[in-house]
C-alpha cells in the first residue's frame, strides 16, 4: 500500500523529474511570494505570467526551448511596467492592466496565425509538470539557484526598500535599482513556475503558500521559511494526487495549497473566537 502510493511513482523517470521541479518551485515561489504579498504585487505577478505568452509562442514556433522566449519577454515586461509607472505617473494597476491584456492577445493572435494545432494551449495555460524534459530540468535548476542566491545576497536591502522606500534611499541604498531587481527575480520565478501550473495558475503558487505562512507566523523571515515548507509540501502532495487520480497536475497542486490555506485560516479564526 505504502509502496504503491508513494514509492512506485518515483521509479519512473518522468515522475522523479517532476518531483524535483516541484521542490524547486516550492522553494522559489514563497521566497518571492512573501515580498509579493507584503508589497501588494499580486496583480503584477498575474500580469507578468500572462504577458509572456508571445515569447513562449515564438520560441515554440521556431523550435527552441520555451524558456528562451519567456525569460527575456518577462524581464522586458517587468522593466517596462516599472518604467511606465515612474516616468508617466500612470497608476501601477492601470499600466499593468493595459500591457498584460495587450500582450496576451498578441500571443493568442500569433498562435492562431501560425496555426493553433501545433500548440497545446491547455498545457500553456494550466501547465504540465509531468512532461518536463531534461533540458527544462537543468534550466529550472540553474535559474532557481540563481534566484535563491541573489535574493539572499540582497535580502536585507530588499526588505528595507519594501518597508521604507525613502528612508532606505536616503541611507544610501539604491532603492530604485532594488525595486527593478525584485521585479526581474519575480519574472524569472514566474517563468519557471509556468511549466508546473501554467499561465493562469501561477499567481496561486506565488501567493497562497506565503499567505498561509503569514496566518501562522508573524515575522517576515519566518513567513519565508514556513512558506517554503508549505510550498514544497503542497506541490508534492498535489503531484501525487494528480498521478494517482489522473488529474491535471497544475490545478491539483493549486487546490491542495488552497486547502492548506483554508486549514490555517480556520485555525486562526478559531483562535480568535477563543
Amino acid at each position, binding site marked *: 500500500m505504502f509502496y504503491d502510493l508513494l514509492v512506485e511513482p518515483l521509479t519512473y523517470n518522468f515522475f522523479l523529474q517532476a518531483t524535483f521541479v516541484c521542490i524547486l518551485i516550492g522553494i522559489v515561489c514563497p521566497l518571492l511570494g512573501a515580498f509579493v504579498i*507584503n*508589497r501588494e504585487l499580486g496583480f503584477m505577478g498575474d500580469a507578468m505570467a500572462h504577458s509572456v505568452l508571445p515569447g513562449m509562442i515564438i520560441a515554440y514556433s521556431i523550435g527552441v526551448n520555451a524558456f528562451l522566449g519567456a525569460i527575456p519577454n518577462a524581464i522586458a515586461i517587468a522593466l517596462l511596467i516599472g518604467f511606465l509607472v515612474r516616468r508617466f505617473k500612470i497608476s501601477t494597476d492601470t499600466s499593468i492592466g493595459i500591457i498584460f491584456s495587450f500582450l496576451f492577445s498578441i500571443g493568442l493572435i500569433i498562435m492562431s496565425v501560425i496555426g493553433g494545432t501545433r500548440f497545446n494551449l491547455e498545457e500553456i495555460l494550466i501547465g504540465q509538470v509531468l512532461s518536463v524534459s531534461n533540458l527544462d530540468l537543468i534550466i529550472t535548476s540553474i535559474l532557481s539557484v540563481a534566484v535563491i542566491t541573489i535574493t*539572499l*545576497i*540582497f*535580502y*536585507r*536591502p530588499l*526588505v*528595507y526598500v*519594501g*518597508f*521604507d*522606500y*525613502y*528612508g*532606505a*534611499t*536616503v*541611507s*544610501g*541604498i*539604491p532603492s530604485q535599482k532594488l525595486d527593478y531587481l525584485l521585479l526581474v527575480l519575480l519574472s524569472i520565478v514566474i517563468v519557471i513556475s509556468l511549466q508546473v501550473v501554467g499561465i493562469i495558475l501561477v499567481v496561486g503558487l506565488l501567493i497562497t503558500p506565503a499567505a498561509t505562512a*503569514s496566518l501562522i507566523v*508573524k*515575522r*517576515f523571515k519566518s*513567513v519565508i521559511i514556513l512558506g517554503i515548507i508549505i510550498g514544497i509540501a503542497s506541490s508534492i502532495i498535489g503531484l501525487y494526487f494528480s498521478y494517482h487520480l489522473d488529474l491535471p497536475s497544475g490545478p491539483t497542486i493549486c487546490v491542495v495549497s488552497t486547502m492548506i490555506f483554508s486549514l490555517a485560516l480556520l485555525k486562526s479564526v478559531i483562535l480568535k473566537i477563543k
Partner: protein
Amino acid sequence: MDSKHNEINIANCCIEVESCCVEYDNILALDNVSFSIPKGSFIGVLGPNGGGKSTLFNAIAGLENLTHGKIKINGKSPQKSLGKISYVPQKEMINWKFPLTVYDVVSQGKIRGGGFRNILGFSNDLILDSLKKVNMYAKKDEMIGNLSGGEKQRTFIARALAQESEILLLDEAFSGVDFGSQEDITDVLKLLTSESKTILMSTHDLNSLSDRYDKVLCLNGHICAFGSPKEVLTEDVLKELYGVHKDRLIDHRIGRHY
C-alpha cells in the same frame, strides 16, 4: 540653548540652504529659502500643512531636485551625502504591513548594500545600544505595526543611531503621538544633540514643547521667521504662518524674489 549656537560660523555649519526654490506643477512649494544650521542643534520646522516642510526635508535628503539655489551638507551636495543623513518620512510613507520586528527595523541602520554580510547578520552591539538609548529594548521583539505612534518614532530614532549618521530629519514625527510620548521623544532628541547630532523635526502643531528647540524655522512656502523660540513664536509671525500665503502664484519667476 548655549551661546555657541547664536554665533553661526561657516566652518561649523552642518546644513546650508541658499536661495532654495522647488517648484512642482507650476506651484512654488519652496520660495527662496535660505538658512544655515550649526552642528549639534535641534531645529523645529513649523508651518501649516502644505507649507513646504516635507519638500524642504526631501530637498535636504537629496530626494527632491531644486529648481533654483543650492544646499550643502558639510560642504557637499545632498546627493553626495547619502548615508550621512537619516530620514524618517511621514508615517503615511511607510509600509506598516511589512511584518518586521522592532529589532529588524533598527538593524536596517547597518545595511550598506548587498553582500554576504546580509546572510550572516551583523554584530548587534550597536543595535542593542541604540534600542536601549531610546528605551525600546524591552519591546525589541514586538512587531513594528502593533506599536503606538510614539514607540514607532523611537524605533526610527534608534535606526538612525545604528546608522551612525550625523543628521536626523524627522518629518511630522509628532503626528498621532500623545503629549506624554512627544515629551519622551523630545528628551531623547535633546540627548542626541548633546552628542553633536544635528536634528531637524517638522511639525504642524505648536505646543509647550516648542520652547525646547534651539531654533524654530517658520515655513509657509517662504521663511516667515527663523530664530530662538522666544523671538520667533510671536503673534505676528504665527498669523503670517498659518494665514493664507498669497505670494505663491503661478507666474512667480524663478530667481526673482523681491
